[in-house]
């Protein structure tokens, strides 16, 4: 394992310290328990939007803390959900009197820990709601699984709900909006090569030289199947088709297309893939009105990508365009 780290057991903590020093105007980082909080928290009268999850997906979630997006993020250890006391601390630090909305990705660990946290926060007298995002179409919901996973759609959810909260939406409004977004966002990813969890010391999985994992999860969990690597055209289509079929998306739909890098795939490839996705969508008569391209919901240095499609309406376009000022996403300010 080759990494720019000092010690696997201090990676998250040291990375958080570095992040704090890189963005002193934007965030405050507390280490025990670990929480990234926007610098001007609590914002009186504003619903606090809080998310979190295992580290290793940077800039998710800490990179999205700031005006117009998250009030706080709770980073767990690498690929390990955060603990309830972290979430409880986040709620305490950001409570502006209007309650808190917890954005949880659908993994057993995350759901259980946030559940416990919500109980603790309620006991502290803060009104708390939780939403669970499960946008990954690779793993179909069935009796036999713990349900779909939360992946790239999380960023879009955090942006849109964050904008609404910033404009003064109340807790009911934020929760309803979140459920709406979750209802109309879908993602799927693929991997060309695995990342390495620092304390594991070796790659999470191994693929043959001509093989990709289709439907990869952001912790390196497998998805649908291993297939031979194809052209970019084929790979993008193999991600897009299941997404389109799932909601389904139809001709005339307005969408946001998010082409996400898994951490180890360079921008030159992401743009190439994005162009293909736009072309395929145009062929289907689906109208791409907004787009985002880059490594935003990553899996350490995994090589690969995911596509996320969010069905838009005027409300969502306006909220997407609203000013945001975070470490990883910034416009209008």
């Amino acid at each position: 394992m080759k990494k720019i780290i000092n010690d696997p057991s201090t990676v998250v903590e040291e990375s958080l310290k570095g992040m704090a020093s890189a963005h002193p105007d934007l965030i405050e980082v507390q280490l025990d328990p670990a929480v990234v909080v926007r610098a001007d928290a609590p914002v009186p009268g504003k619903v606090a939007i809080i998310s979190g999850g295992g580290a290793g997906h940077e800039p998710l979630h800490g990179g999205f803390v700031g005006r117009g997006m998250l009030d706080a993020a709770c980073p767990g250890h690498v690929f390990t959900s955060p603990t309830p006391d972290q979430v409880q601390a986040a709620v305490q630090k950001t409570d502006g009197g209007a309650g808190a909305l917890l954005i949880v990705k659908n993994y057993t660990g995350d759901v259980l820990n946030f559940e416990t946290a919500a109980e603790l926060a309620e006991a502290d007298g803060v009104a708390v709601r939780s939403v669970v995002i499960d946008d990954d179409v690779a793993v179909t919901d069935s009796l036999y699984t713990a349900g779909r996973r939360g992946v790239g759609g999380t960023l879009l959810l955090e942006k849109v709900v964050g904008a609404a909260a910033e404009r003064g939406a109340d807790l009911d409004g934020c929760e309803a909006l979140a459920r709406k977004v979750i209802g109309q966002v879908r993602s799927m990813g693929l991997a060309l090569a695995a990342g390495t969890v620092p304390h594991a010391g070796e790659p999470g999985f191994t693929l043959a030289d001509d093989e990709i994992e289709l439907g990869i999860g952001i912790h390196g969990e497998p998805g649908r199947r291993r297939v031979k690597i194809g052209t970019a055209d084929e790979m993008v289509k193999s991600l897009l088709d299941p997404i389109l079929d799932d909601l389904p998306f139809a001709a005339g739909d307005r969408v946001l297309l998010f082409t996400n890098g898994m951490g180890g795939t360079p921008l030159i490839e992401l743009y190439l893939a994005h162009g293909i996705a736009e072309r395929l969508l145009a062929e289907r008569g689906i109208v791409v009105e907004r787009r985002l391209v880059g490594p935003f919901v990553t899996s350490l240095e995994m090589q690969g990508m995911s596509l996320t499609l969010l069905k838009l309406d005027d409300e969502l376009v306006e909220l997407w365009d609203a000013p945001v000022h975070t470490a990883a996403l910034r416009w209008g300010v």
Partner: protein
Amino acid sequence: MACSGHGVAVAMRTAAKVLEEHRDELSRLDREIGDGDHGENMHRGFAALVTAMERDAPDSPGGVLKLVAMTLISKVGGAAGPLYGTAFLRAATAVKDTGELDAPTVAVALRAALDGVVARGKAERGDKTMVDALLPAVLAAESAAERGEDVPALLRAAADAAAEGADSTVLVLARKGRASYLGERSVGHMDPGARSTALLLRTFADVASGHR
């Protein structure tokens, strides 16, 4: 061996050592069918517990179990944190303020732990989770208690059943937790949580029997 608060504390400290020894093994199992952090998660939790017990060693078994629960909940994370945390919390509640645990109380505590895990995780036997180790352990403990066995014998029966239960996870398809995403590919690998449950029960039995 006494099942006093001190005895439970010794068992927990020993468990911390055992989990450190098996850290890589548990993570390797988790890498096969999950995300590779189970060994690290358990080690981190029990290492924190040892530190916590140095600061504050509760007298009663229930007090120790509660400290274990609170530490695991706040230090482990992942699925294992809340599940084991709930298990120990329910066990703590079940033993109330008993000063010395007898065999029937241990059986009741184990049953409460299992109920807690199932209440949180909604896994059934055969889903390839820690339940596959814990459930047979509880059944074995309950019949040992009914037979009038003492605590060491009860825990040995529970540990044997848990080991067998963990072994049984190798051949089944995962249906809960991260491993479920693997579908058929999960077959052939032991569930790491079932393995850590078996390790814990074996350690408790060894400590109770004076073997460690």
